[in-house]
């Protein structure tokens, strides 16, 4: 009898357990097994990349605007980036508040970068140049330049994210194997496609961090 009750309870509880699983990309980012903390630098990057693409391409503006107030600073940071790439000018006030008052420098960086992409709130960007954190100040200077430019950087980013990367394709560049093809833009704005030059000359590619 007891066994039957437990089995029946299980039948009712299992679907509920399924419903409690995080489903939205923002929710899954919040619950990443390896959130973007120092100790996870070499771990779980594939999931971070995949979710960033998914957050941007799902374009759930309502959920994203709410997530700007999330407790998790990594969620606030990626949300700020996503909203600006999506060109959501309605989020400019909330982004400006983050630039002015968020205690986490990473969030202030992403928020001021986002105002640059949206080309809004020049006074806030100017104020961020004086931020106590050098990283924020640096990004604010770049954002101030972007305000003056005719280029729609948000649109360029949107187009770049529009081609999703398959998880199984991540990290497939191996010694002894053909070089995976990719497209990019040269710094003077020209289209680049690796496969159009591969096989003609020896090539060296350096994947850089801004300071590395």
């Amino acid at each position: 009898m007891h066994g039957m009750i437990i089995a029946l309870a299980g039948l009712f509880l299992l679907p509920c357990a399924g419903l409690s699983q995080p489903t939205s990309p923002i929710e899954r980012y919040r619950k990443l097994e390896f959130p973007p903390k120092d100790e996870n630098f070499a771990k779980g990057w594939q999931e971070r990349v995949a979710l960033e693409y998914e957050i941007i391409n799902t374009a759930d503006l309502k959920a994203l605007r709410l997530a700007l107030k999330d407790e998790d600073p990594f969620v606030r940071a990626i949300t700020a980036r996503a909203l600006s790439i999506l060109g959501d000018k309605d989020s400019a006030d909330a982004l400006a508040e983050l630039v002015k008052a968020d205690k986490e420098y990473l969030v202030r960086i992403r928020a001021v970068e986002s105002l640059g992409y949206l080309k809004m709130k020049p006074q806030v960007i100017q104020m961020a140049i004086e931020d106590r954190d050098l990283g924020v100040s640096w990004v604010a200077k770049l954002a101030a330049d972007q305000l003056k430019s005719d280029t729609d950087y948000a649109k360029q980013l949107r187009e770049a994210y529009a081609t999703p990367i398959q998880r199984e394709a991540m990290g497939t560049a191996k010694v002894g194997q053909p070089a995976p093809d990719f497209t990019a833009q040269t710094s003077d704005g020209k289209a680049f496609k690796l496969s159009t030059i591969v096989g003609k000359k020896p090539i060296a590619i350096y994947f850089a961090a801004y300071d590395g």
Partner: protein
Amino acid sequence: MHQQAQLRLKKDEVEKLGALVFVVLAMDLHRTRMFKEENLLLGGGKGKFGKEKSIVYATALSDPAGYASALYGVARKCLRWGAWVENQPHWFVIDRKGKITFKLEPKFDTPTAYEKDVDLVLEELKKAAR
């Protein structure tokens, strides 16, 4: 940035090999342009690259969504030593047949480690040119 500055010092060797060199940044076009054209990080300092205006010889490529970086397994999108890092720097060499023949992850373990890294890349480019 030091890797790129060092490569620039060796550009004659690269040209003699008829090789092409690229630097990929998981950043928007504006940041990529600044990286290529302005010596923002080493300029003004007392080091050997301090007086140079631009120190990047390679063709700079903007990969703003980090697609190429993920494909090549170098994307991180993570804090490191308290700063946000899109990519863990890596070199790749591709031969005339389009095959990857060399991969190097710089360790930055000494102040001049980049010199050795770039020499290794040049050695591999020589082999790839054959």
